[in-house]
């Protein structure tokens, strides 16, 4: 009896295992004749990617997955363990190109041979970020987040200001605000804002990668100290705010209170920070953008960047051409840049396309927008090829470090040089941990 039962339960166990196994282990798909690519994008890129999958359905199997950008590295490392599962093409933040190029991770291939020279040329300087120290191109820039000077035309007129073309003129406006219009502001400096708007355009060497093993970090360089010296009295006078531009208190006290006179910010700042009702909610017809003011003694009015996503292609992809074709659709095709419907009901790409021909298509959309006092597009276009190229993608998290080291130090005593030094110390440690030799020259 006992033996009979034993046999019965053994058979049951085997049958259950077979059933579970049968449902769990998916059959290995036969090698399809059609190329297949797996795309990972973030939520704003999803409508365009899904449209691409639909368009390409007859010729390419395109699978689109949403992913949280911060998870990419951990997941790629897990895929490296099992030697499969990598997405063919990934949209990510700009610094990912350095992280993924790291030989330990090895998940960004050189793309130079996959597109004709004319296409690369059409990016202008917009794709410089993707060039490694070896001269090869490891990513395709989706959009530029170049800084421009956003300003309130109504307040400028009321206070008798002209649009500054030099940084010294902008700071003079700040001094006048402190003296004659207390409470009015030129923006917030917390998080990455101080870098993308001031330190980076001033050529301050903070993440200046010289080779795969050497980075220059020098917060006491004259290109940095000219910024801190100019900003400090205006921070003390409360013309610049030490909080983040996204801080709820700053939004309420300054943004929504109509106290913001001008603000150097990225090209997407207008539509996604100044305009939304949940953000600064500026009034229609009052704001526009001007090109970056130039630092005294310089020849070029450089911009910095706050964001500006990239596409990287995995060296493990069996179909890199198809993967690159997707990236080019996103940066150059009218169906994505202008017509695709976004979740909030808007149409087209949300930010300034990095690819020249794609950008020309997108320009009409911005120029037709009547919200602005005048189109901000000319200012964006003027700065598109002027992002200072000394700041490079590096293997450590530069953006997280602004939040972790710079912002708390600035909030603590309002001393911007001390805060910058704290940031430099923080990233120097990070850089050394990741095998960089850190120098000040």
């Amino acid at each position: 009896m006992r033996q009979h039962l034993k046999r019965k339960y053994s058979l049951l166990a085997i049958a259950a295992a077979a059933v579970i196994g049968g449902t769990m282990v998916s059959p290995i798909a036969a090698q399809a004749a059609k190329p297949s690519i797996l795309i990972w994008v973030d939520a704003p890129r999803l409508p365009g990617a899904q449209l691409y999958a639909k368009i390409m359905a007859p010729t390419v199997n395109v699978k689109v997955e949403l992913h949280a950008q911060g998870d990419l590295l951990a997941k790629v490392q897990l895929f490296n363990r099992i030697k499969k599962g990598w997405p063919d093409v990934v949209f990510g933040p700009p610094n990912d190109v350095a992280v993924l190029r790291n030989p330990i991770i090895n998940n960004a291939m050189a793309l130079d041979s996959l597109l004709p020279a004319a296409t690369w040329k059409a990016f202008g300087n917009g794709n410089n970020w993707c060039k490694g120290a070896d001269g090869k191109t490891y990513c395709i820039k989706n959009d530029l987040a170049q800084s421009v000077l956003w300003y309130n035309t109504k307040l400028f007129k009321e206070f008798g200001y002209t649009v500054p073309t030099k940084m010294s003129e902008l700071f003079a406006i700040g001094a006048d605000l402190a003296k004659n219009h207390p409470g009015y502001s030129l923006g917030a400096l917390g998080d990455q804002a101080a870098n993308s708007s001031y330190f980076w355009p001033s050529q301050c060497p903070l993440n200046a990668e010289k080779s795969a093993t050497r980075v220059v970090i020098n917060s006491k360089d004259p290109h940095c100290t000219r910024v801190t010296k100019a900003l400090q009295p205006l921070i003390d006078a409360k013309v610049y705010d030490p909080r983040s531009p996204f801080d709820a208190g700053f939004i309420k006290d300054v943004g929504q209170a109509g106290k913001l006179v001008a603000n150097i910010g990225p090209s997407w700042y207008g539509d996604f920070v100044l305009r939304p009702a949940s953000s600064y909610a500026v009034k229609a017809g009052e704001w526009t953008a001007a090109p970056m003011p130039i630092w005294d003694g310089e020849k070029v009015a450089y911009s910095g960047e706050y964001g500006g996503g990239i596409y990287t292609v995995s060296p493990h992809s069996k179909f890199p051409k198809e993967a690159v074709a997707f990236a080019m659709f996103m940066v150059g095709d009218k169906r994505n840049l202008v017509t695709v419907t976004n979740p909030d009901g808007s149409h087209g790409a949300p930010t300034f396309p990095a690819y020249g021909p794609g950008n020309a298509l997108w320009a009409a959309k911005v120029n037709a927008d009547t919200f602005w006092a005048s189109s901000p597009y000319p200012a964006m276009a003027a700065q598109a090829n002027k992002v200072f190229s000394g700041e490079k993608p590096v293997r450590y998290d530069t953006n997280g470090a602004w939040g972790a080291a710079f912002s708390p130090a600035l909030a603590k005593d309002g001393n911007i040089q001390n805060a910058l030094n704290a940031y430099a110390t923080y990233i120097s440690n990070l850089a050394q941990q990741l095998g960089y030799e850190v120098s000040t020259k």
Partner: protein
Amino acid sequence: MTLLDKPVETVAKRKKKSAIRTNSRWGISLVNSWLVFFAIISVIPMIWLILAPSKTDPEVTHKNPLSFGSFSGYIHAWKHLQFFDNGVIGRWVVNSVLYTTAIVFIATITASLAGFVISASTIKFKRVFLISTLLMMLVPPVALVIPLFVEMDKVGLIDNPWSVILISSLYPFGAFLSYIYYTTTIPPELYESARLDGCNDFKLWLKIALPLSGPLLSLLAFFAFIGNWANYFMPYIFLPSSTNYTLPLGLGFLFYSTPAINPGVGATSVPILKPEIALAGVLVAVPIMIVFLLSQKRLVRGMLAGSIKE
């Protein structure tokens, strides 16, 4: 006892009683104050979470945190959540329910079986099994990520819900709890008489132990539910596709994808702001509250099982 003794004794007793009553009153007030204090600390965030989706994004920041917006706020927030990856949140809800149900079922049964085997079966090496169970309780899941990931890949279960279900169903705490229960609440004589009647170990569990395990099963199921409904780590590792996500994983994803919480995201055309995030948080938290409220009585009974030996 004289007649005079009585009133003296009564007065003394009264004094003592009155002192006890006074002490009790103070003691009760003190205990109640503590309870109210901790209730406020734990309940206020929950009330805030439930009220937040009724407001607009600026209202969440600027209005009184415990004020109510409007009922339409919930509808707006839900509609906006639907914009995220074509309403994938609905899929996350279904996934969470399915995965958790499967895990609770498998984990409860296997833990009960394991606990029974260690306490009442006639197999060898019971002590080894018991110590192994205790050791398993000490190993944090993070330590096993890479071997488990490789193992799941070998059996073809990466990005397959069964990977999470099977791994999460390993429930050493439940097995240990069952062992304690079966050792302390069911008299060994009961097993012996059943064995004399021809029951093998499985039948003993099925016919004798299981019918007497109501409070234990409730407790096992409750802890398995709590641990797995809110589990972030396992789905994060084994389920890369967003369509396979669970609610807590999706909530983390929403957190990451909105500039309202993560300014680094910058420009986005997806209308996910604080009320939408709060509503997703409500979807994660409310089932736990409901399950807890519904199972309170059985839980207390289960927790006290075996505490008194007659």
